[in-house]
C-alpha cells in the first residue's frame, strides 16, 4: 500500500484546487443551538447571528464563489429547518435560516445541523 504524507495539496500549477475523483468535499458545516446561541461545532463558520426567535444567520470564514451553493439542514423532532424565504438572503458570505414548529410558527431550538456544498471563492 502506498502512503503520501503531505500538508497541502493543490493542482500542478501550485494554486488551483485539486480534483477529487468522483467525490466532493463539503465547504462548511454547523451544529448550532439557538436556544443558548451556541455554536457547538463547525467548519468554515466565522459566526452565527441570532436574529430573533427562530431566525439566525451563519456567516462563512471563506466565502462561496457565488450564491448558488446548497444548504441542507435539519432540526429537532417536531421542528423543521428552512431557509428564511421571507428574505431568502443566501449570499456568498452568509445565509438566513429559520426553524419552525409543527405549523408555521418560528421557534428557537437546541439542535440545528447544516451542511454546505458548492464552490468557494
Amino acid at each position, binding site marked *: 500500500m*502506498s502512503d503520501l504524507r503531505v*500538508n497541502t495539496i*493543490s493542482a500542478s500549477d501550485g494554486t488551483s484546487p485539486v480534483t477529487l475523483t468522483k467525490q466532493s468535499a463539503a465547504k462548511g458545516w454547523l451544529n448550532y443551538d439557538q436556544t443558548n446561541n451556541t455554536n457547538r461545532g463547525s467548519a468554515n463558520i466565522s459566526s452565527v447571528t441570532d436574529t430573533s426567535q427562530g431566525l439566525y444567520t451563519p456567516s462563512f470564514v471563506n466565502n462561496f*464563489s457565488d450564491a448558488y451553493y446548497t444548504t441542507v439542514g435539519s432540526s429537532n423532532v417536531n421542528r*423543521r429547518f428552512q431557509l428564511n424565504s421571507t428574505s431568502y438572503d443566501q449570499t456568498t458570505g452568509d445565509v438566513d435560516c429559520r426553524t419552525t414548529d409543527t405549523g408555521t410558527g418560528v421557534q428557537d431550538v437546541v439542535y440545528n*445541523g447544516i451542511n454546505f456544498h458548492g464552490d468557494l471563492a
Partner: protein
Amino acid sequence: MSEIKVDNLTGKTSAGDITVTSEGGAATQSLQQGLAKAWALFDQVSVALDSSLNIASTVDDAAGQWRLNFTNAMSDGSYSWGTGEQDYRVLGVSTGLVPTTTQIKFYTRVVNTSTLTDVDYNNVSINGGLA
C-alpha cells in the same frame, strides 16, 4: 494534467490535517473537515439500510423513531447532519437521546403535525470530525 495515484493520504505535520485550495483560489480549507463522515439511505418501512457509509447498524425504535450507529466513532457530539425526506415528511434529531460519538437518533413525522411515521426514504449525511 498531473495525477497522483496513491492509496492513503496522511498529513505530514498533523496526520489528520491536509489543506486544499478553494475552487477560486482565494482560500484554503481542511480536506478532512469537508469530507462527509457518514451517510445513509434508510428504509424504515422494510427496516433496511439501502446504502451507507460508516454505518455499523440501525435500530428501529418505534414508528418514526430510528437510530444510526457509526462504525468509526465521531470525535464528539458536535457534528452536523443534513437530511432529505420524501413527500410531506420531516426529519429531526432526538432531544431526549442526544447525538453522541457513536449514534444519532432521528424522528420522522408528517409535516405540519407531530404524528410520527415510518417512511421508505430517509436520507442523512453527517459532517464533523472522526475520533
